[in-house]
C-alpha cells in the first residue's frame, strides 16, 4: 500500500537562502513522525509547502499514492492535510463550536447556523479521542492546553488524516504535554498520521515512531527512538558533537548575597501568588527554583526585581533592604535579570541590537554624557558584544526583531553579563531555544557562577534545574516546600514535591539511595 504522504525532492529557495534542499519524506498510516531540527533548519518552510502556503520551486507531493497540487490551504484541507500552528488560530470571543465551525458552517434552512448539530458532532469527536471539550465554552475562558485541543478538533471535524503539529508543546505545562501525548496516541490508534515538528529531543524520544532530522534545509538522517540516543540526535541536529550534560565543578559558595524573608506577593488579580517564601542565595552558587508553571515563580521574580512590590516580607541584597526599591535602583546595586518572556519584557524589538544592548545602562557614562546619548559609543559597544557573545548578525544596527530566538536571548545575556553584577535572576533562560543556544547559555551561567555571582535560576524545565543548580528549592502554590541539595536530590523526589506531595523521611531516604545507586552503576 502506498504511504499516506510522500514528499519527493522538495526544494524551496528564498533570496539568498536555500530553505529546503531536495527533501524526501515518507509518512505511513498511523504513525507519529517527528521532524527534528534547530530553529531555521527549514522544518516550518517544508510544512508550509505541504499546507499550501508556499509553492515549492521543485519537487512533488503524493497523498495515498496520488500526486497532489497544493496552491492554497484549501487544497491541502481537501486532501486531508491539517495543520496546528504554534500560535493558535482561534477567535477568543467565540465559543468552541463557533470556532470549529468557522469556514465550514453547518446551516439550517434560511441560512441559520445549526449550532446544535455542530456541537453534537464536536461531542462525538471529543468522546472518541478523549479530548474532554465543552462545545459551549468560550475560548477566552479555557486554558491553553484545552485551546490546543480545540485546534485538534477543528482538524478532526474536517476529517483530516494527516495532522501537522508545529511545536505543539512549546506553550504547554508538563502535565498538559502528557495529556497531549495521550491524545496523540489515541489519534494514531484511530488511523490518523501525525507529523510532529519540534526541537525538543526528550519529547521525540517519548512519542515518535520515526524521526527525520533536518539541518540547513537538508535531510541529514532518519532513525527511530530505539535505534538512537539523545546525544546522537543532538549531534545530528546541530552538526557537531554537543554535550547535553552541563559540565561544571563543585560550587564554592561564599557569603549570602541575596535573601528573601517571609515574602508575600499578589498576582495581578489580587490573589496570593507568593506565600511566605524564604530562601538565601550565596555567592558562587546556583539556586534553582523548580515548580510547575503558575506556582508563583513569575510573581516572585517580579517582586525581587522591583517590577512589582511585595505586600509583606523583606528582600535583601548585599545587606540592603530592597523590598520597595524601583527596578532601576535594584539594577544599579548590581542585580541582573533575564526575564521569562524576552520579547515582552527584555527587548524593544524595533530598536537596533546596539540600543538593546544598553537598554538599562543608556543613561550612564560612557553611553550618555549628561542628557546626550553617545550613539557612536553605543554602536562600538554593540560591535564588541556581538563579537564576544557570538550574536549571529550582519550588523549591530539591524532591529533585534530580525534575530532568531536564540540570538535574541544572547543579546539579553550579553547586556546583563557585560556589566558588573553580583546577583542574577535567570527566568526561563532557555525557553524556546535550540540545542546549540541552550548549550551556550548554560555554559555562560555556570561561568558567571564560577566568577562568584549568585544566581537564582527559575525554570519549569526540570532537567534544566537539575543540571544547573547547586541547591533546588521546589515551589508549590506559592510556598517553598523544600530546599534540596542538588547532589542528592533525585528527579523522582523533585517531581513529587512539584506535584505538592511531601514524602516522609523514609521515602526520601529511599529515593536518595536509589539515586546513589544509579550514580554508582
Amino acid at each position, binding site marked *: 500500500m502506498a504511504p499516506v504522504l510522500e514528499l519527493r525532492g522538495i526544494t524551496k529557495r528564498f533570496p539568498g537562502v536555500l530553505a529546503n534542499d531536495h527533501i524526501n519524506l515518507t509518512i505511513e498510516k498511523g504513525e507519529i513522525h517527528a521532524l527534528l531540527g534547530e530553529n531555521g533548519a527549514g522544518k516550518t518552510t517544508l510544512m508550509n509547502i505541504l499546507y499550501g502556503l508556499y509553492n515549492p520551486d521543485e519537487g512533488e507531493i503524493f497523498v495515498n499514492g496520488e500526486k497532489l497540487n497544493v496552491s492554497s490551504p484549501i487544497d491541502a484541507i481537501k486532501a486531508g492535510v491539517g495543520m496546528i500552528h504554534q500560535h493558535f488560530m482561534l477567535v477568543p470571543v467565540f465559543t468552541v463550536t463557533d470556532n470549529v465551525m468557522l469556514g465550514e458552517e453547518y446551516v439550517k434552512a434560511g441560512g441559520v447556523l445549526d449550532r446544535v448539530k455542530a456541537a453534537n458532532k464536536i461531542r462525538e469527536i471529543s468522546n472518541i479521542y478523549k479530548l474532554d471539550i465543552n462545545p459551549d465554552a468560550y475560548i477566552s475562558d479555557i486554558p491553553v492546553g484545552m485551546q490546543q485541543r480545540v485546534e485538534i478538533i477543528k482538524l478532526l471535524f474536517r476529517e483530516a488524516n494527516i495532522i501537522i503539529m508545529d511545536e505543539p508543546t512549546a506553550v504547554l505545562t508538563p502535565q498538559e504535554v502528557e495529556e497531549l501525548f495521550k491524545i496523540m496516541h489515541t489519534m494514531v490508534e484511530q488511523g490518523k498520521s501525525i507529523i510532529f515538528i519540534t526541537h525538543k529531543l526528550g519529547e521525540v524520544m517519548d512519542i515518535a515512531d520515526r524521526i527525520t532530522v533536518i539541518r540547513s534545509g537538508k535531510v541529514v538522517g532518519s532513525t527511530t527512538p530505539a535505534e538512537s540516543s539523545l546525544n546522537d540526535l543532538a549531534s545530528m541536529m546541530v552538526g557537531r558533537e554537543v554535550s547535553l550534560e552541563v559540565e561544571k565543578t563543585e560550587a564554592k559558595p561564599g557569603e549570602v548575597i541575596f535573601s528573601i524573608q517571609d515574602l508575600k506577593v499578589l498576582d495581578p488579580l489580587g490573589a496570593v501568588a507568593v506565600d511566605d517564601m524564604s530562601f538565601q542565595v550565596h555567592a558562587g552558587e546556583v539556586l534553582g527554583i523548580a515548580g510547575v508553571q503558575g506556582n508563583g515563580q513569575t510573581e516572585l521574580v517580579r517582586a525581587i*526585581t522591583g*517590577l512589582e512590590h511585595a505586600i509583606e516580607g523583606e528582600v535583601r541584597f548585599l545587606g540592603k533592604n530592597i523590598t520597595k526599591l*524601583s*527596578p*532601576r*535602583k535594584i*539594577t544599579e546595586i548590581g542585580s541582573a*535579570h533575564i*526575564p521569562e518572556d524576552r520579547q*515582552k*519584557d*527584555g*527587548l*524593544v*524589538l*524595533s*530598536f537596533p541590537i546596539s*540600543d538593546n544592548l544598553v*537598554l*538599562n545602562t*543608556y*543613561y550612564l557614562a560612557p553611553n*550618555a554624557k549628561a*542628557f*546626550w*546619548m553617545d*550613539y557612536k559609543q553605543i554602536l562600538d559597544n554593540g560591535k564588541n558584544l556581538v563579537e564576544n557573545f557570538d550574536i549571529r548578525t550582519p550588523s549591530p544596527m*539591524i*532591529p533585534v*526583531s*530580525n534575530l532568531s530566538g536564540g540570538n535574541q536571548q544572547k543579546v539579553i545575556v550579553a547586556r546583563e553579563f557585560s556589566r558588573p553584577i553580583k546577583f542574577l535572576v535567570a527566568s526561563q533562560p532557555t525557553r524556546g531555544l535550540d540545542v546549540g543556544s541552550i548549550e551556550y547559555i548554560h555554559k555562560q551561567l555556570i561561568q558567571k557562577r564560577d566568577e562568584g555571582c549568585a544566581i537564582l535560576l527559575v525554570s519549569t524545565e526540570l532537567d534544566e534545574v537539575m543540571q544547573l543548580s547547586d541547591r533546588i528549592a521546589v515551589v508549590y502554590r506559592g510556598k517553598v516546600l523544600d530546599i534540596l541539595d542538588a547532589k542528592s536530590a533525585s528527579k523522582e523526589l523533585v517531581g513529587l514535591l512539584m506535584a505538592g506531595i511531601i514524602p516522609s523521611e523514609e521515602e526520601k531516604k529511599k529515593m536518595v539511595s536509589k539515586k546513589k545507586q544509579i550514580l554508582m552503576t
Partner: protein
Amino acid sequence: MENNNEKKHNSLSVFWDEFSRSNILVIILAIFTGIILGGVLVAFTTNEVYDAFRVSLWSGIEAALKTAWNTYVSLFNGSVGNPEKIRLAFESGNDLAIRRAINPFFESLVQSTPYIFGGLAVALGFRAGLFNIGVEGQIFIGAVTGVWAGYAITGLPAIIHIPLAMLFGALGGGIWGFVPGFLKAKTGAHEVIVTIMMNYIAFRLVDWLLKFPMYDPNEVTPKTPWILETAKLPRLFENPVRFHIGFFIAILMAVLVYLLLFKTTLGFELRMVGSNPNAAKYAGVKITKITILAMVLSGALAGMAGANEILGVNYRLLPAFSSGYGFDSIALALLGKTHPLGVILSSLLFGFLRNGARSMQLAVGVPVDIVSILQALILAFIAAPAIIRTIYRLKEPKHEETLVTLRSWKG
C-alpha cells in the same frame, strides 16, 4: 572592460533593488498615483468633458486631458507661482509686482507652518505610544493663551513679547495635553477618548471666552481685541506677502524634536515607552513620568501652532479660527512616518495643496474639495502600500519596520 561594465550595471541594479524596496519610492508613487486619479476625478466632474464626449470619443478624451492639465496648472500657479508672471514681474522691476508674483509660494509656506507644529505634536505623541487626537483642541487653547499674552501684557519690547506670547501658547496647549497624559498615566484612561472629549471642552471654552471675558467691546460679533504690535511675528516682506518668521520657528522646533527624540536620553526613554512599555519598565524607566511628559510636550507643540496663527497671521482670535489643522496633522504625521523631517515635507505638501486649491477654484472653477479628495487618495495609498507595490510591481521591503506601535485599549 566588459567586466567593468558589468560591475557598473550590477551596482546600478543593486541601487534600483534597494530603492524599489524603500518607503520613499512608495510615497513618491503614492503622490503620483493620487494626482493621476485626481485628474480623472476632475475630468469626470466637469460638464464640458461630457459635452465633448457627446461629440466624439477623441474630443472627449482631449477635453478630459485638457481639463485635468488646466486644473493642475492652476494648482501649481496658485501654490508655487505662475512662472510667466514671475519672469515679467522681475523684468519690470516693480517691487509690488514682484511681491505679488512670488506671493503664492510664500503663502503656501504660511499655510504649511501650523501643519508643521501640529504634525510634530502628533509625531512626538506617536513615538511615545500615545495617539493625541486632541491637537485641534490644544491649538484652540494655545491660540487663546497666545492672544491673551498678545493684547493683555503691555509695555514689553518685541524681543521679549514675541517669545513670551509663543511660550504662553505652548503653555496653554501643554496644560491641555497634561490632562489626558495625567489621566492615562494614573488611571489608565485611554488618551484617544480623553483627548476627543478635551477637544469639545476646548471649542466651547473658547466660544465662551470670546463671548464674555475676552470680548472686544468695540465689536458686534465675538472677537478678541487686536494683539499689540510688539507681539506680532515680524513679516519678511511688505504687503501682500504674509510670510512671517513663524515658519522658521516651526523648522527650529522640528530640529529640536529631532534632537530630543534621537539624541537625548529622554528621547530614548520616550521611544522605549512607545515601542515596548514592558521593556521600558524592566529597564527602569518611569512610565507615568514619560507618558505625562510626552503628552505635555505634544500639547505644547500644538499650542504653538495656535499661537503662531494668531501672532503671525490673524492678530486676533475669532470663533472657529482653525479649519481642522489639528485633524489634518494626524494624517500628515503618519505620512511623514512620524519623523520630524518627514513631518516638514508632508506639511509642505499639505500647505501647498491647500493654498493652490483656492486659486484652482478661482481659475478653473474646480471645487476646493477636490484637493481634499487628492489628499485623501495620497494618504490612502500610503496607508496601504501593498496597492502601490502591486500597481508598480515593486519588491517587498526586506523587513517591515514598525515605526508606530500603539498600545491596545487595555494597555
